């Protein structure tokens, strides 16, 4: 089918799904799905940039998304009173010392002549540096974590508007991507995939365990919001009046209003990123990226610095994932490090890109929206299916309970089957690359 018809048709289909959800399950649920769908679409856009346009295999999406979430906490949450005086500076100085140690060791490795002296110096720098770092860092951490641990026990943030955290999330992710890319793409052979897999796990481990930073598994809740709270709207007579004039329950209306506000913000970000991605890819830079992807040897022979270009696009893609992560934490209003799981935040995004169409930005957006809708809806659909299938069985029989329980696991199965079907019968995805 002509892509000019196919693309609007598929987006129309997604719109029908969303509207159908609104009619059947209520507009609040539909908007909830739409909002996460928009964020997923942005993540898919980031991964598509890396895989679709440069063939870079990033399986650490989760880590970049989580860094974005951390940015939301660091930027927007109020600083914990007394935390900086108690140990914040110690932590900061400790981290600087730790970084200095690593830099020192790297410098010793690169600047000194090969030999036993170099090895000993490097080891000495590392050991002394580590001891000093722990000596400065640990008291700070203990002091900060001791401050009212049941509600805070972390440094807190800068109390700035949370919208600011979106670009900051992108920057944090970009920084991490730079370090990973510098190491993994610089090795003689390319080891990016395992590096991203590893770093994502490390980032999550840090968020889970460094309570002074992110409160760990105790979660940071009550982050400020860029849109009004539902309860404020419900107490606003003007809003209630307007809701009633539309014939809506003010409680429902307040929910829809805030979700629509979020959706508006997300759509703006998505459109900006989509526009930038499309522009970039039709620019000389984008053509060069594709030239490198399709024939690296020829591109090298033409004097293109392939590694630097790969690093560039890897950082850009990761930054987009970071922005999406900050947006997600903003939407949730909380950071819950325990909830980051690779299946949900890395591999599901890959399903979105593959199903949508690798190498096509519109495909990635479509995949994000469609797959997220499916991810949410498979469970109730599976449950309904199982109840229908087991309706002939006696109520409460072992088999029936088992079947109804199993519906909860339909999600993963469906995602896998869908991905395999698309890979086999439409390997270029729903909206193929032009």
């Amino acid at each position, binding site marked *: 089918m002509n892509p000019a018809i196919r693309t609007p048709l598929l987006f129309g289909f997604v719109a029908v799904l969303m509207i159908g959800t609104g009619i059947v399950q209520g507009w609040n649920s539909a908007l909830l799905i739409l909002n996460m769908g928009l964020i997923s679409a942005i993540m898919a856009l980031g991964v598509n940039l890396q*895989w*679709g346009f*440069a*063939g*870079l*295999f990033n399986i650490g999406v989760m880590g970049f998304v989580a860094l974005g979430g951390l940015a939301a906490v660091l930027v927007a949450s109020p600083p914990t009173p007394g935390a900086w005086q108690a140990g914040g500076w110690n932590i900061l100085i400790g981290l600087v010392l730790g970084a200095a140690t690593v830099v020192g060791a790297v410098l010793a490795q690169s600047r000194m002549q090969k030999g036993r002296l170099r090895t000993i110096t490097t080891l000495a720098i590392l050991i002394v540096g580590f001891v000093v770092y722990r000596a400065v860092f640990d008291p700070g951490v203990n002091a900060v974590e001791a401050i009212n641990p049941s509600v805070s026990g972390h440094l807190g943030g800068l109390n700035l508007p949370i919208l600011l955290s979106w670009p900051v999330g992108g920057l944090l992710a970009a920084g991490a991507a730079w370090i990973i890319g510098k190491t993994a793409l610089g090795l003689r*052979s*390319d*080891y*990016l*995939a*395992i*590096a991203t897999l590893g770093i994502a796990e490390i980032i999550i481990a840090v968020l889970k365990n460094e309570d002074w930073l992110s409160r760990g598994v105790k979660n940071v809740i009550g982050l400020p919001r860029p849109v009004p709270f539902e309860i404020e709207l419900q107490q606003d007579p003007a809003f209630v009046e307007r809701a009633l004039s539309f014939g809506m329950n003010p409680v429902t209306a307040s929910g829809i209003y805030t979700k629509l506000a979020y959706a508006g913000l997300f759509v703006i970000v998505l459109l900006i990123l989509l526009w930038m991605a499309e522009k970039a890819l039709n620019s000389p830079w984008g053509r060069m990226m594709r030239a*490198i*992807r*399709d*024939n*690296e040897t020829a591109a090298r022979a033409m004097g293109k610095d392939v590694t630097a270009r790969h690093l560039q696009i890897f950082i850009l893609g990761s930054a987009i994932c970071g922005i999406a992560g900050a947006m997600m934490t903003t939407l949730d209003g909380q950071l819950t490090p325990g909830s980051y799981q690779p299946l949900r935040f890395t591999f599901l995004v890959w399903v979105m890109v593959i199903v949508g169409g*690798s*190498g096509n930005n519109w495909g990635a957006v479509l995949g994000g929206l469609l797959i997220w809708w499916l991810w949410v809806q498979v469970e109730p659909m599976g449950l309904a299916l199982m109840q229908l299938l087991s309706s002939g069985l006696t109520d409460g029989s072992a088999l029936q309970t088992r079947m109804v329980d199993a519906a909860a696991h339909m999600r993963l199965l469906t995602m896998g089957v869908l991905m395999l079907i698309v890979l086999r019968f439409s*390997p*270029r995805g729903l909206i193929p690359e032009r």
Partner: protein
Amino acid sequence: MTNAYQDSRGNKDRSITNPAGQGSEMPRNKSGKVTAAPSTAFLIGEAMTGGYGKGPDILHDCTIAVDPGEIAVIVGPNGAGKSTAMKAVFGMLNVHSGRVLLDGEDITALTPQDRVVKGMGFVPQTSNIFTSMTVEENLEMGAFIRRDDFRDTMAQIYDLFPILKEKRYQAAGELSGGQRQQVAVGRALMTKPKVLMLDEPTAGVSPIVMDELFDRIIEVARTGIPILMVEQNARQALEIADKAYVLVQGRNAHTGTGKELLANPEVRRSFLGG
């Protein structure tokens, strides 16, 4: 790109994909039928026209033949289709007109694997040994299709190439260029082939090693196996050839005995540098 499944997007990530040793050249389709066909030579590729995959034709009406006790060589300038002609005889590319006959049978429809079973031994130009396996294991793999006791054959090969016996437990990848070629030829001989085909056996070895390899090849021919060989070093090859084909742009340009072609002024002028 025509095959979306082969689009790797330039990904070369070694932590997830393994490019080493991946097969590319061998076709994996099924064999067709073999029919009896009287022929003038033991092995003959008759009026072959064809090319790789859906690409343009490289061979045009090209004929190559070899008989028992003979060494037949294919020589010609770069890009003349020498290796292609040999691969056509071995079934590695599409021959859409012409046929290949072996020992009175039409084997045009057979895959390379089945041609090996029929008695063709083939030594590719590159990647012709299992580098991570020992010399002896290489020979064993050569005899993979044989279900009988192949120790005699292995002993014969060790007699033919004494250096291989000495290094039998060493990884083949650790050997020198000339020794590796001996392993490659030895591996192909393990099936007791009715005909041996060598694709540029002396590529990339020093002149001294080259002379030694030629001596070995003559010895193999003396055991009665017909040898079909592609050679870059035209003069030396013609000197040992009983029959020689000069190909130019995928066509037979000159055919004769090695001596005849060496004496042919046109061949001398164009290929042998005077």
